[in-house]
């Protein structure tokens, strides 16, 4: 594969994003500029920006990779990611905008008048943000290695650097413009190549994976194994090996590999003949074409997995920090609804495409099942299907550019919201210490400058931590890890928002208990799976897809504890609800409360 063009494309996307961020528009000056683009963005632009921010590496690369590996059940990812916005529209969009706060912790404090709940929510925002950032950065590493052969650490460092520059220099105003553009770049990058790939697929006789056979190499295929792996071979096969096989150093010899488990060393190239079965890692059983094609026929409790995934994505979307903060850029509640409605169209259009790549990947890049890097399928397909040539190079470059747009836009949105929350907490800590009289006008300006400086610092911290973690933590499929972030959001912020907006009985104690139990349980399963513990059977299913039990747990605890402590329902509850639900056109005589701007 030609490595120069993709590298140039990556560089162009990175530099353009950074330049746009730094010089493209007036840099944010006031605190509100930094957070939410002064709340003056039109619905279509705002919707494009939401789409650009939301369609992360998990959507761009991850769904195709999971479809390649596990088939029909993974199609629900796209449905869940879209339908999550419908739930958000129905329960949260307009009231959230009317709440007049910047972040979920702000919302929690305004609604419950409790600093404790606010701090708890802040911690969760930061953890969810980091958990979501981690796979974005790792995917950047994988992409750069796939297309240019660069070491794994280059991608995370490049993305981290661009994001820090963008966020630290301008804040949300510049981010909005960049992300609106990046949605359209991502859609184009998926939509154009798929036309050519499908034509090539038809010219090839429109094959579908063989119902009775495990995945097979269609052509003679050379697989480069970067990380050592133990694979199980079924039928004996003659392969050519450059590197280490079963502890033996081989240099281009043809060897016969018998049935059983074989160890392939790091940085080994193995060439398989056309028509041979793809060896799978020992802990992954090969799935034949029939099971791959049919829904609910995977090995480990596919029914539970599917429903748990749907719960996590439907209810988790509303709790994602970078999604929620976007609603404050709408001028009012109805505009927030219009924006969400537009977002649904943009998402529905986008999610038609990744499954196509996944199915083609099953046919033409099955070797990824052996290395486990199924997220790379999208990047390899043009070369594989169109057989080299300048056309394939152009399409591959487009896909690479789209992938980088996905990493950058999601990562900057997340970094922005994590930075916002971190910065606010820092500011409050400082404000509590300094209890002098309120300053004069000149002091106020200096104060604003100091605030923006703190926020920039927080932006750097928000990106640096996951950047460092991405180099250490074991790599798992992108969409899987993002699914876990959704599960944590669904088990913590979803109950807080739903009960906070629609139920008078919510108390600070109940909210805190619910956040701790639901969010805590979900985070615990994440920690267990991230460190590579994968038990089989039911425990494995419950740990890998926790939402189906952590979400009901969070709701039950939050409502139950609120009911037990029903004497301490905050006194401002009725007023808070009035503010969330009353149409703006009423222009009610509001009691003096928190400022809206």
């Amino acid at each position, binding site marked *: 594969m030609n490595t120069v063009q993709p590298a140039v494309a990556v560089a162009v996307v990175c530099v353009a994003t950074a330049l746009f961020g730094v010089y493209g528009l007036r840099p944010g000056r006031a605190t509100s500029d930094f957070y939410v683009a002064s709340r003056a963005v039109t619905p279509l632009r705002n919707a494009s920006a939401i789409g650009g921010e939301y369609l992360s590496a998990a959507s761009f690369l991850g769904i195709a990779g999971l479809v390649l590996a596990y088939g029909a059940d993974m199609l629900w990812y796209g449905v869940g990611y879209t*339908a999550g916005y*419908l739930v958000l529209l*129905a*329960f949260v969009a307009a009231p959230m905008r009317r709440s007049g706060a910047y972040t979920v912790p702000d919302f929690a404090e305004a609604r419950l008048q409790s600093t404790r709940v606010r701090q708890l929510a802040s911690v969760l925002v930061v953890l969810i943000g980091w958990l979501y950032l981690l796979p974005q950065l790792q995917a950047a590493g994988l992409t750069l290695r796939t297309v240019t052969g660069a070491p794994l650490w280059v991608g995370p460092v490049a993305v981290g650097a661009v994001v820090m520059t963008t966020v630290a220099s301008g804040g949300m105003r510049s981010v909005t413009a960049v992300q609106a553009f990046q949605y359209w770049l991502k859609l184009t990058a998926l939509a154009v190549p798929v036309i050519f790939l499908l034509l090539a697929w038809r010219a090839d006789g429109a094959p*579908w994976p063989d119902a009775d056979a495990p995945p097979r190499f269609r052509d003679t295929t050379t697989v480069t194994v970067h990380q050592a792996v133990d694979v199980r071979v079924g039928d004996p096969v003659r392969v050519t090996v450059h590197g280490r096989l079963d502890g033996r150093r081989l240099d281009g010899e043809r060897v016969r590999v018998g049935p059983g488990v074989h160890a392939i060393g790091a940085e080994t190239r193995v060439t398989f003949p056309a028509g041979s079965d793809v060896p799978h890692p020992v802990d992954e059983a090969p799935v034949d074409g029939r099971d791959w094609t*049919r829904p609910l026929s995977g090995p480990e409790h596919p029914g539970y997995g599917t429903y748990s995934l749907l719960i996590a994505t439907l209810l988790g979307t509303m709790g994602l920090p970078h999604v929620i903060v976007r609603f404050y850029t709408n001028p009012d509640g109805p505009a927030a609804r219009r924006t969400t409605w537009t977002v649904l169209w943009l998402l529905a259009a986008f999610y*038609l495409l990744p499954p196509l790549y996944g199915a083609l990947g099953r046919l033409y890049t099955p070797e990824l099942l052996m290395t486990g890097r199924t997220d790379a399928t999208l990047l390899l397909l043009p070369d594989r299907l169109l057989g080299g040539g300048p056309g394939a190079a152009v399409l591959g470059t487009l896909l690479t550019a789209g992938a980088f747009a996905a990493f950058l836009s999601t990562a900057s949105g997340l970094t922005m919201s994590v930075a916002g929350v971190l910065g606010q907490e820092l500011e409050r800590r400082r404000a509590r210490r300094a209890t002098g009289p309120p300053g004069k006008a000149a002091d106020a300006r200096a104060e604003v400058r100091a605030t923006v400086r703190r926020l920039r610092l927080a932006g750097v911290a928000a990106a640096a931590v996951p950047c460092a973690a991405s180099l250490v933590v074991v790599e798992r499929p992108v969409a899987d890890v993002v699914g876990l972030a959704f599960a944590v959001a669904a088990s913590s912020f979803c109950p807080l928002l739903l009960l906070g907006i629609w139920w008078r009985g919510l108390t600070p104690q109940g909210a805190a208990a619910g956040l701790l139990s639901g969010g805590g349980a979900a985070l615990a399963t994440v920690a267990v799976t991230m460190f590579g513990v994968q038990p089989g059977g039911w425990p494995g299913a419950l740990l890998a897809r926790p939402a189906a039990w952590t979400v009901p747990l969070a709701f039950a605890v939050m409502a139950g504890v609120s009911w037990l402590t029903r004497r301490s329902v905050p006194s401002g509850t009725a007023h808070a609800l009035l503010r969330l639900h009353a*149409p703006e056109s009423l*222009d009610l005589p509001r009691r003096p409360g928190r400022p809206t701007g």
Partner: protein
Amino acid sequence: MRGDRGVPAQNGGPPRDRTPQGNAPHGGAPGGRTAGPGVPRGRTPESATPPAPAAPPPRVTVAHPRTLAARSSQPPPGSRALVADDLGRQTPLGDVYLRSLIRTQLRLAALVVGALAAVLGLLPVLLATVPSVRDTTLAGVPVPWLVIGVAVHPVILALAWVYQRQARKNEAEFADLVERS
């Protein structure tokens, strides 16, 4: 769904006259409001002020109450201080109004999300267990793939459209009710 809620639906909006000097043209009905013939909903002129003639008769702006409310930063005298004030100060009466709005909106949201949950809840089972659906292919692609990958999205969009429209209507009716009582 109309009329099936705590907030009564109203059909025509009586135009409200607003006179800067306070002399209402219809003989000064209390609060400057008159019970004129109904103006069709949603078709209100932007501003009905004629080009200023030489001799100034009292100028009257005819517009939908909501339009007026949106335009004016100050509440017009009289009427709107009633329920709006109740709402703002959270008297028991205001609370009743607020509860009715929240109940209406919550019912709508629950209905839409319930429909979504029913579709998404039944589909996996249906696609996996009904053999005629599970094993059919259409143009070389298995039907379950077409259903999950394509056909679900229009359903989601349709539900969103229904929700959007109805939620806006609920709020408009609530605003009318509050401004008029």
